[in-house]
């Protein structure tokens, strides 16, 4: 996999020129997530059709496509929030067997952080409690260590001053940044984003995308279901276009956006680009 930074990433101000040369943050050959022959039915509805899909370490993959195309279902299958009807999901070599107990699944799920469209912050906990809950409970991290980690992550998403506030006092963008910090607190191998900006007011989308960009440049492995085409184009290493439960086309973002090979991709991009400035 080529990591061509000159094409897509040089326009972004947050990345310094030194970083651009740092090839150690490029996607590796190591496969972190592997999906093979994945099928999912909701009743009679065939929502995922024979999906084969891989994510390499340090790779940022954008999943795009019309609504109802199965993107969210696919990403939810990756950490067993949905059970595939057939097919296999491997996380870092471990098979995500649908027959595993909740306890066994919880161990595998620690490897993947998830950020939801509707944030799903815990409303009865303060911001810092939201972030430290899983390290304390799941990792059994000592309290002072968890607090230090929580504060570091809140600083990273620019919300240090909100540490003792309840989520109801936060804007949507702030909520989503806390949710990202919460996912990072488990130090997962990869982050899954399920339409992280779709529930946000337009003026709040930027702050969340900025945090995601920073993560991408630090070499995080990310799978992002998104309708933000600019983000997919500028930040991702690979764009996967899905339609009707199948992967229609995937590849280098610049290539896919400029010269989509399939009719369906062309139609989708035309429709969505026509409303972009």
């Amino acid at each position, binding site marked *: 996999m080529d990591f061509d930074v000159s094409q897509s990433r040089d326009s972004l101000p947050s990345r310094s020129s030194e970083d651009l040369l740092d090839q150690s943050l490029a996607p590796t050959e190591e496969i972190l997530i592997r999906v093979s022959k994945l099928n999912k039915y909701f009743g009679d509805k065939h929502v995922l059709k024979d999906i084969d899909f891989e994510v390499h370490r340090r790779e940022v993959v954008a999943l795009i496509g019309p609504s109802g195309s199965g993107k969210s279902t696919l990403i939810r299958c990756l950490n067993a929030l949905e059970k595939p009807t057939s097919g296999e999901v491997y996380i870092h070599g471990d098979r995500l067997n649908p027959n595993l107990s*909740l306890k066994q699944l919880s161990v595998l*799920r620690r490897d993947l952080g998830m950020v*939801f469209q*509707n944030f799903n*912050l*815990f409303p009865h906990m303060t911001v810092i409690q939201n972030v430290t809950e*899983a390290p304390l409970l799941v990792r059994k991290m000592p309290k002072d260590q968890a607090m230090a980690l929580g504060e570091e992550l809140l600083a990273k998403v620019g919300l240090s001053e909100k540490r003792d506030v309840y989520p109801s006092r936060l804007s949507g963008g702030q909520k989503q940044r806390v949710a990202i910090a919460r*996912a990072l607190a488990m130090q997962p191998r990869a982050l899954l984003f399920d339409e992280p900006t779709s529930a946000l007011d337009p003026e709040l989308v930027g702050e969340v995308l900025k945090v995601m960009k920073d993560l991408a440049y630090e070499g995080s492995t990310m799978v992002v279901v998104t309708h933000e085409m600019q983000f997919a184009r500028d930040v991702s290493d690979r764009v996967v276009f899905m339609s009707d439960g199948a992967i229609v086309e995937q590849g280098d973002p610049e290539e896919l956006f400029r010269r989509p090979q399939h009719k369906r991709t062309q139609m989708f991009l035309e429709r969505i680009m026509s409303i972009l400035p």
Partner: protein
Amino acid sequence: MDLAARAFPALLLGAVNTVIYCVSSFPIALLLGLLLAVMASSRFIWFRAPARTFIEVIRGTPMIAQIFILYYGIGALLGVYGLAGLINAWTAGIISLAINYAAYEAEIFRAGLLSVDKGQTEAAYSLGLTGSQSFFRIVLPQAIPFMIPPFVNDFIYMLKDSAIVSVISGTELTSVLTFWVTRNTSDSFPLYFIAIVFYLLMSLPTSYIARLFERRLRAAF
């Protein structure tokens, strides 16, 4: 007025007994209700079916029948093993109240737990929390503020419902009241008045404290 003064100590004792019946049986009803609610929401039929059956049978049959069965039926059964002493008006009363109310509290728990967004459990699972961690740390704490008003409602009901223990010779406020009223039918008004004041003295602080508690829990989110 003389009658009221004479009846007062007995009525007070009756009120204290009412409180003892309720304060002992309601927590048991809550715990059993939670267990039933969790079982009734289980994916596994062999958890779900017994819980549903229990809830429907208990809700669908009169408490007076349940209390008789427990007191005389189970009492006789235990008598066979020389354990008849275990069943008296206190134990039979408290157990019947607890069992009966558990069926109702279970449905309150179930409704409360259902009111918590599914996304909360998903977020907890995605962080690697186990089923019980996500239930006790994430879902239940969010459901409790919504369940307090119906719980308090039922507790206040129980304060009065506990009068049913009089059928197995339990002594509580209503049974003491009846005892005095039947002996003073021409002058019973002050007796009723005292009993009503006692009932209010039990229920009003309950409502007040519960509202305070609820407000504090809800203030956060």
